[in-house]
């Protein structure tokens, strides 16, 4: 059985021979990405880990990249698929620049383009195994959206992927405000990343924070968070747990 997959602007056609070239499971994966809108634009954070199953094999993986002048893309999931997506976007932004006509692709256009790509791949049972976070600022308007590997896409004031949805979003729902300053935004993101660091086994303590404003994108140098492991609950995790004999009286 042959599949013909047309990639975007029709310059490439790939033939997939039955199962040998379909994505079945991810191999090298990145964990959560967390992003918020703040006063001047978008802040996005992710760690630099690439897990090979349960092994934390790669510790210098950049999972956030600038796209064109106005957008920032962060990804969790299969790293090689993320690199493939970057290649598509490279072609897209290149063609956009070649027009040289004063128009440029904004974050909304990139987000919708990615949604189409992800959804079409899902329909062919050959998904790009990623959850993508797309943020950007254009003409003063802030944009933050997400696309999953099955093509589900939406926009919001704060988004997260993977474990971030369960651990970071509740914090953001309580503490996010429209007019966060840069410092407040970073503190909020660090709070989320710290929780993820404690509780997500595929997180590593080496993260980057990216800032996206009207002026452009900056991705910070990698740094690590201070952690505290002497919480009583950490030293004696089973105290007071259901079925345990230990009690804290």
């Amino acid at each position: 059985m042959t599949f013909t997959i047309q990639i975007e602007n029709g310059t490439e056609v790939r033939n997939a021979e039955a199962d040998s070239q379909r994505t079945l499971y991810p191999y090298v994966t990145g964990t959560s990405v967390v992003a918020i809108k703040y006063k001047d634009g978008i802040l996005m954070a992710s760690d630099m880990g690439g897990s090979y199953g349960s092994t934390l094999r790669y510790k210098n993986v950049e999972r956030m990249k600038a796209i064109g002048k106005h957008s920032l893309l962060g990804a969790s999931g299969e790293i090689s698929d993320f690199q493939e997506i970057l290649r598509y976007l490279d072609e897209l932004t290149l063609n956009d620049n070649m027009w040289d006509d004063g128009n440029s692709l904004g974050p909304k256009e990139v987000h919708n383009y990615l949604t189409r790509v992800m959804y079409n791949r899902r329909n062919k049972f050959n998904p790009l195994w990623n959850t993508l976070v797309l943020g950007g600022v254009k003409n003063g308007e802030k944009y933050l959206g997400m696309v999953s590997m099955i093509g589900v896409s939406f926009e919001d004031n704060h988004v997260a992927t993977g474990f971030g949805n369960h651990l970071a979003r509740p914090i953001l729902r309580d503490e996010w405000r429209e007019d966060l300053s840069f410092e407040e935004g970073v503190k909020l993101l660090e709070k989320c990343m710290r929780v993820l660091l404690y509780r997500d086994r595929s997180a590593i303590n080496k993260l980057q924070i990216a800032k996206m404003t009207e002026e452009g994108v900056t991705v910070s140098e990698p740094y690590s968070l201070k952690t505290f492991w002497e919480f009583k609950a950490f030293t004696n995790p089973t105290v007071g747990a259901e079925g345990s004999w230990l009690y804290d009286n």
Partner: protein
Amino acid sequence: MFRNQYDTDVTTWSPTGRLFQVEYAMEAVKQGSAAIGLRSRSHVVLACVNKAQSELSSHQRKIFKVDDHIGVAIAGLTADGRVLSRYMRSESINHSFTYESPLSVGRLVVRLADKAQVCTQRSWKRPYGVGLLVGGLDESGAHLYYNCPSGNYFEYQAFAIGSRSQAAKTYLERRYESFQESSREDLIKDAIMAIRETLQGETLKSSLCTVSVLGLEEPFHFLDQESIQKVIDTFEKVPEEEEDAGEGEAEPEAAPVAAGTGEQGGSGDQDVAPMEM
């Protein structure tokens, strides 16, 4: 121009470096009824003369909506024009679907021009016999382009194509410097007055012209007969005195039924009821 031995094929050059078939295609544009386009900073107006084959038939549609933010007026072989309008609509909607954002006019006209160029370089094709005035709005402002059968395109502040368009162009050349800052109403008025120039003597009535507008916060749409007539009434004198009689009323093509003395435009008296609008 006269027949010569280099004009049979579009793929044959003349010794002086001309492609006669392409030039003949541009002649077809000159034979079509007039179409006019003007733009200001925020609006684009497209207007055309309604020409009908005979008194019995309705007039041909020459202005098409491509998208909420783009419209096109054609002159020449209207069948070719319809096909190209369909292409433009298709490109526009595909772009909107993929990027959820309106296609910028400049990129659309380049695709159109490239499509026309292909027909000037294939021996089994012929050039499109239609000129297109593409007007639209995108993030870099309001634009008006003219696409010709040769595959060239040009951007204009105002332009007219088709038969007797020179008269309209002369009028527009006198006034174009004010268009950029014109209000919407003035722009429409100028368009209708330019149409009047191409009629050269015929009384201007709202049934004779089609006018469309698009602008910021205003998606492409046609003006109804009443609105057009209102604008005409502001500058056209009372119909009984034929001010611009000059050339004489006799028109070679389908002339309005009534005898020379003017009839009240507007209510009731339409001899040829247009099918659309």
